[in-house]
C-alpha cells in the first residue's frame, strides 16, 4: 500500500469539502427562481431498467418540451431525477434527498415497495403528491394513500378489462373458461382474489390457478395441468417475459387452442418481440395507445415529434408514453391548483387531481378519463399479429 502523506490527506479532504459545497449555491438559486421542481427516482438500472429508462426519458422530455412552451402558469419546471436501481432503501433515500434539497410538490417514484414505504411520509409531509410505475391495487386508495395516484388502471383493473373482454367474446350463453397463471410475488398475487371475484360475477368459470416463480422455470408439469383443465383463455400476471413464452410454446406443442393474455408490463412491444413465434396470437391489456397505432392522434404525434429528436428512440415504448402521461397529469394538477390561486400543498393538489374528470389526453387513452379514484380505470385489449400489435377491443372502462 502507498503510505499516506499528511499533506495529501488534508488536500483530499479540502477537495471533497469543496466538491460537496457545490450543491449549496445551486439550491439557493433554485429557490429564488420560482421554478417548480418535479422530483423522480426512476429505476434506470436494476431489474426494472427495461422500463425505467423509458419512463425517465418520457417524463424528462415532457418537462423539456413544456418549458419550451413557457412552462405552467408562467413558471418553468425543473426535473430532478436520480437512479434508484429499483431498491427500496435507495429510492426512499432519493425521495428524502430531493424533498430536503428542492422541496418538489410532485414526485415520481419507482416500485410498490417504495410507494408503500413512502405513503405514511407523504401523509405526514402533506406537501408532495407522488406517483410511480406500480399499479398495485392497494395503492389506489385515496383514504389510505391520499397523496399517491397511479397513471393507469390497477393490476386488478387490468384483469377486469381482460375478463370483460372474455365475457364479451362469448358466442352463446356459456362463458369461456379462464385459467390464472401468476408469479409467487406480491406483483403476481395482487389481482388474483379480485380477479376471481370478478370472474364469478361475470359467470366466467376459473378452471385452474397456477403459481410459479418468475423467470425461466420448467413449466411442463403446469402445462399438463392446463391441458387437463381446458381453459379458453390463460391469463398471465406477475411476469415481464419468462416463463410466458415457454408456456405458450408448450401449450401449442400440447395441441391447446387456449389464448394467452398478459398485463401492462408484458405488453410492451420490446417484450412481445422477445417472445418470437410464441407470441403470435397473444392478447393483452394496455391502457395506453401504442406509438405505432395507425389512428392519428395529437398527443401521440407530439410524442413522436419530440421523442424522435433523442437518440435510441425511447419514445417508441409504452414506458415513454407512461412517463409523458405522468407529465401531463402533473400539468393538470399544477394548472388547476395554481389557476385557482391556491398554494401547491398536498391537500390542494389532491383536490385538483380528484377534480380531473372527462379529461381528453389527446389520444393516449381513446376515451376521456378521470382520476377521482387516484387511478385510471381504462384499458384496451390488443392482439399480437405478425410483427405488430393491433387493437382487438374498444376502450373498456371498468369499475
Amino acid at each position, binding site marked *: *500500500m502507498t*503510505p*499516506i502523506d*499528511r499533506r495529501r490527506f488534508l488536500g483530499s479532504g479540502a477537495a471533497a469539502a469543496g*466538491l460537496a459545497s*457545490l*450543491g449549496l449555491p*445551486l439550491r439557493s438559486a433554485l429557490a429564488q427562481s420560482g421554478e417548480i421542481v418535479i422530483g423522480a427516482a426512476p429505476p*434506470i*438500472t436494476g431489474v426494472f*431498467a427495461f422500463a425505467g*429508462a423509458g419512463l*425517465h*426519458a418520457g417524463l424528462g422530455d415532457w418537462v423539456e418540451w413544456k418549458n419550451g412552451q413557457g412552462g405552467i402558469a408562467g413558471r418553468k419546471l425543473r426535473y430532478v*431525477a*436520480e*437512479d434508484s*436501481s429499483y431498491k*427500496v*432503501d*435507495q429510492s*426512499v*433515500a*432519493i425521495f*428524502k*434527498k430531493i*424533498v*430536503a*434539497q428542492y422541496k418538489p410538490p410532485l414526485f415520481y417514484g419507482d416500485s410498490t*415497495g417504495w410507494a*408503500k*414505504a413512502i405513503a*405514511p*411520509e407523504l401523509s*405526514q409531509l402533506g406537501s408532495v403528491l407522488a406517483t410511480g410505475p406500480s399499479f398495485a391495487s*392497494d395503492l389506489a386508495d385515496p383514504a389510505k394513500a391520499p397523496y399517491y395516484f397511479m397513471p393507469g388502471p390497477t393490476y386488478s383493473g387490468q384483469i377486469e378489462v381482460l375478463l370483460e373482454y372474455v365475457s364479451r367474446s362469448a358466442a352463446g350463453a356459456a362463458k369461456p373458461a379462464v385459467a390464472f397463471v401468476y408469479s*409467487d*410475488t*406480491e406483483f*403476481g*398475487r*395482487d389481482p388474483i382474489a379480485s380477479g376471481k371475484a370478478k370472474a364469478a360475477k361475470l359467470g366466467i368459470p376459473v378452471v385452474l390457478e397456477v403459481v410459479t416463480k418468475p423467470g425461466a422455470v420448467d413449466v411442463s408439469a403446469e402445462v399438463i395441468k392446463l391441458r387437463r383443465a381446458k381453459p379458453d383463455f390463460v391469463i398471465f400476471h406477475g411476469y415481464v417475459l419468462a416463463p410466458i413464452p415457454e408456456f405458450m410454446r408448450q401449450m401449442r406443442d400440447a395441441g391447446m387452442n387456449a389464448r394467452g393474455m398478459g398485463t401492462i408490463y408484458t405488453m410492451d412491444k420490446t417484450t412481445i418481440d422477445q417472445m418470437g413465434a410464441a407470441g403470435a396470437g397473444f392478447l393483452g391489456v394496455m391502457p395506453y395507445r401504442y406509438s405505432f397505432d395507425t389512428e392519428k392522434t395529437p398527443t401521440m404525434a407530439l410524442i413522436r415529434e419530440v421523442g424522435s429528436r433523442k437518440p435510441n428512440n425511447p419514445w417508441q415504448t409504452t414506458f415513454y408514453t407512461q412517463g409523458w402521461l405522468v407529465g401531463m397529469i402533473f400539468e393538470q394538477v399544477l394548472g388547476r391548483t395554481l389557476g385557482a390561486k391556491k398554494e401547491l400543498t398536498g391537500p390542494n393538489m389532491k383536490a385538483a387531481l380528484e377534480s380531473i374528470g372527462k379529461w381528453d389526453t389527446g389520444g393516449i387513452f381513446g376515451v376521456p378519463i378521470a382520476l377521482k379514484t387516484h387511478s385510471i380505470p381504462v384499458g384496451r385489449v390488443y392482439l399480437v399479429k405478425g410483427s405488430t400489435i393491433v387493437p382487438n377491443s374498444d376502450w373498456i372502462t371498468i369499475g
Partner: protein
Amino acid sequence: MRIGDFHASYRHDEALFDTRAQRVWLGLLLAALAAFPFVGGSYLTYLACLLGIHLIAAAGLNVMTGYTGLISLGHAAFMGVGCYAVAVAERAGIPFFLALPLAGAASAAIGLVVGIPSLRIKGLYFAVATLAAQFVLGFVFREWESVTGGVRGANVPAASLFGFELAGDRRVYFLIAPLAVLMLLGARNLFRTRVGRAFIAIRDRDISAEVLGISLFRYKLAAFAIGSFYAGVAGGLWGYFFRVATPELFGLPLSVFYLAAIIVGGLGSILGTILGATFMTLIPEFLRALVGWAEAFGLEQAGVYLAPLRQVVFGLLIVGFLVFEPHGLAEMWRRTRRFFHLWPFRT
C-alpha cells in the same frame, strides 16, 4: 507521539476505552450523534437511521460469521422475523420498548432451531443450511397471511411512548441511534467475556476448543441466538422506520449485502462491522452524488449513461478492497491510525 499504553491497575486494563484520548473522542462522537438530526437535515438523518439498522444487523452477523465461523446466508430472514414480530406486537398493543426485545427473542428462538445443524456440519455446508432457512422463512412470510399479511405485507404503526409518536426520521433516529450504540458496545464487550472467547476459540479450531472444555453445541447455538437477536432487533427497527413489512424486503440479496459488509469491513471486528456497513450503505449514495455532479457540470444525460457504470464501480470497489486488503477496511483504518500515531516516523 504515542508509544504505548500504561496500565496501572486491573480496572484500567479491563476498561473498554482505556485511554483518555479514546474517552474524549467517544464523548465527542456521542455529542455529535445527539446533535446530528438537528443539523443533518432529513436526507442525512434518513441515511443515519438506515446505517444504524445496518450496523446492528451486521454486528449480529459478525458475531456468527466473523467471530464464531458460522457462515449465515439467512440473516435477512431473521431480520424479517423481527420486523413481523414488531408488526404483530404493535397490533396487540405492546409498546415498542417491549416489542423490540420480543422481536429479538423471536428471531433468536428461530436462530436456535436453524443453528442446530451447526453441530454436524460447518463451512459451506452449514451456509447452505442457512440458505434453506432463508427460503423457508421467506415462504412463511408469504403464506402465513393471517399473521404476515402475505405478499401484500403488514403495516407497522409508528412506535409511540406515552402517546408521543416516534414518526418521521428525526424522531425514529433517537430510537435507532442509541440502540445501535448500545448494541455495538454490547458486541464489543461480548468478546472480552468467556462466552465471546469461546466463540473465537471455536472459529479458530473447534476440535481444540472442545478439548479445552468448550461445549461446541452450546456455544455455537449461543452464537446463533445472539446473532439472530441482533438481526431481530434490526428487523424490528426496520419495521418502525419503513412502517411496512413485506416478504420481498427480506430476501437473499439483503443477506448477501450483510455478508459483503462484514467481509469488506473486516471479519471478526466490531470496527470492521462499522466500517463495512458504512461503506456498503454510503458508497452507492456517494456514487449517485457523483453522477449528479456530472450532470450539474453540464454532462447531459449523465444519469442515463453513468448510472449503470455506478454498479460496476461499486462492484470493483468491493473487489479492490478484497484484493488489496483482505483483512478489510478495519485493517486499513488501523494502519492509517498507526501512521498518525507514529508520525513523523515511518511504520
